[in-house]
């Protein structure tokens, strides 16, 4: 874990309202793994007071990419940064995706800004095994296609691809592959992750062979385990919460209660 002032080196609007910011931080770029995140202080003053967590979207030499949309004050300030201005980064934080080769087919499941961690994950999987990506959003404006391999799209309003939610699409499509050993990587709103989790459990109860890692979200104050602000239920012990920031944000879906 490091704290660095990082310069904004490049800033793109990859599609309407979705920003990609490239921040220079050789130290963090060298260490960070897919699924890990950064906790960013977007301004020097007291407003906003707390850091804002962002997944590492990609790494390019000594640049870290983050992807975001404007929600509130923090992301608004970030979106107004000019090239050459700095942000203060604390990272790398949390546990990333478990990158092993123990599968035949990788599946990416992303909802909304849950698309953020996949470019870097794609690069790091790097094993010539097949990947299928399922990405969803309310309408096609909200679907982030950025760098997804083999992309299938679900929109709730049917404006592009499958009409319905991304988990339904995944359920429909994956059936043809259920003989394979599948590893699902999912990132999106907790509601989506919950239905992914239920589906995976059902498949496995039916004797299929799927593993699934989900990247979860939580309100956070510190991002590195000292505030206890980001609990998530431990599925193995009803008397215990895990911490999203430290024990996650990526969990094996069997380890948590969504």
């Amino acid at each position, binding site marked *: 874990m490091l704290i660095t002032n990082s310069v904004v080196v490049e800033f793109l609007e990859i599609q309407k309202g979705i920003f990609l910011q490239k921040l220079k931080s050789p130290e963090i770029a060298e260490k960070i793994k897919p699924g890990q995140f950064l906790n960013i202080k977007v301004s020097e003053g007291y*407003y906003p007071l707390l850091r804002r967590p962002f997944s590492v979207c990609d790494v390019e030499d000594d640049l870290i990419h983050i992807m975001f949309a404007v929600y509130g004050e923090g992301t608004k300030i970030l979106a107004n940064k000019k090239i050459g201005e700095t942000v203060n980064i604390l990272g790398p934080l949390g546990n990333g995706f478990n990158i092993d080769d123990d599968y035949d087919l990788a599946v990416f499941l992303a909802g909304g800004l849950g698309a953020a961690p996949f470019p870097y994950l794609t690069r790091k999987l790097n094993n010539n095994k097949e990947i299928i990506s399922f990405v969803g959003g309310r309408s096609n404006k909200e679907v982030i296609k950025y760098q997804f391999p083999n992309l299938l799209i679900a929109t709730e309003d049917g404006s592009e691809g499958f009409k319905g939610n991304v988990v339904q699409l995944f359920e429909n499509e994956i059936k043809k592959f259920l003989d394979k050993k599948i590893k699902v990587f999912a990132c999106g709103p907790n509601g989506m992750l919950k239905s992914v989790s239920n589906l995976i459990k059902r498949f496995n109860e039916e004797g299929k062979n799927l593993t699934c890692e989900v990247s979860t979200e939580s309100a956070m104050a510190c991002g590195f385990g000292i505030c206890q*602000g*980001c609990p998530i239920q431990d599925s193995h012990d009803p008397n215990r*919460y895990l911490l999203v920031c430290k024990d996650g944000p990526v969990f094996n879906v069997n380890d948590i209660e969504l």
Partner: protein
Amino acid sequence: MSNLDLSIKIGSLELSNPILLASGTVGYGNEISEFIDLNKVGGIITKSISLKPRKGNKPQRIFETPAGMLNAIGLANVGLEEFISQKIPFLEKFDVPIICNIAASTLEEYVECVRALENFEKIKAFEINVSCPNVKEGGLQFGNDIRMVAKITENVRLSTKKTLIIKLSPNVSNISDFAKVCKENGADAVSAINTLVGSAFDINSRKPKLSNVFGGLSGPAIKPIAIAKVFEIHRAVDIPIIGVGGIMNWQDVIEFIIAGASAVQIGTLNFIDPTASISILEGIKNYFVNKNLTSINQLKGSYILDNGN
């Protein structure tokens, strides 16, 4: 100024400098030790320990507010047993005083915790949390009931020879009366302040932002209140005060000392910048050198008031 000495003594507790890390904002030291040399701070105050482990409140536990944050952690902690078996051994690696913060739902529980920890050499002091607003039993009710605070102080005092600090609730109109009963019942110091009771609602879902509805407000927003409380106590009661609430930089620390604090605690700031306690210490040293001051006592409570108004 080679004779600058920032050390301070509170009861038998000897601090090399007045910068303590506040309870609940550095866990048991593990994580923050990756950012700073813990041996450099004046002391570490543990997350509140209770007799049994506490799971804490459901999410959402944290909500940011203007220049502050609400937390409703609900005293999530590992409990006395695991604290002794896992956390003390880790803390023993450092040459820094540990102040053990204790929370409880009954008078007996406070006493039992203190007794169980009394023989651990590593623990130099107890800070008794009578004022956490985030649990239903105990907690706030104690902190706002002056007879209860007196009784807890009296009973815990009988159970320990270590330095005894009572952490006061700011949610009262007469904090110096509370400080007075702490002193009368044998406390060595008081900490002021714990968080203020606050809440927030979502205007779309109409649900509270925190599952617990109420949370504790901390951060720079509350600093003026904390300064007022420290000053009120200092004016009225002759007891060492540990100032806490909204410290963001060395200037804030100096302000607390001028208002009457012997030492201070860094809380919420640790979440934003876990290295801040060390840079603050540098800032304080420079201030002392520039002002030709050599000891905390020269600055402590040195406010200058006009006569009359």
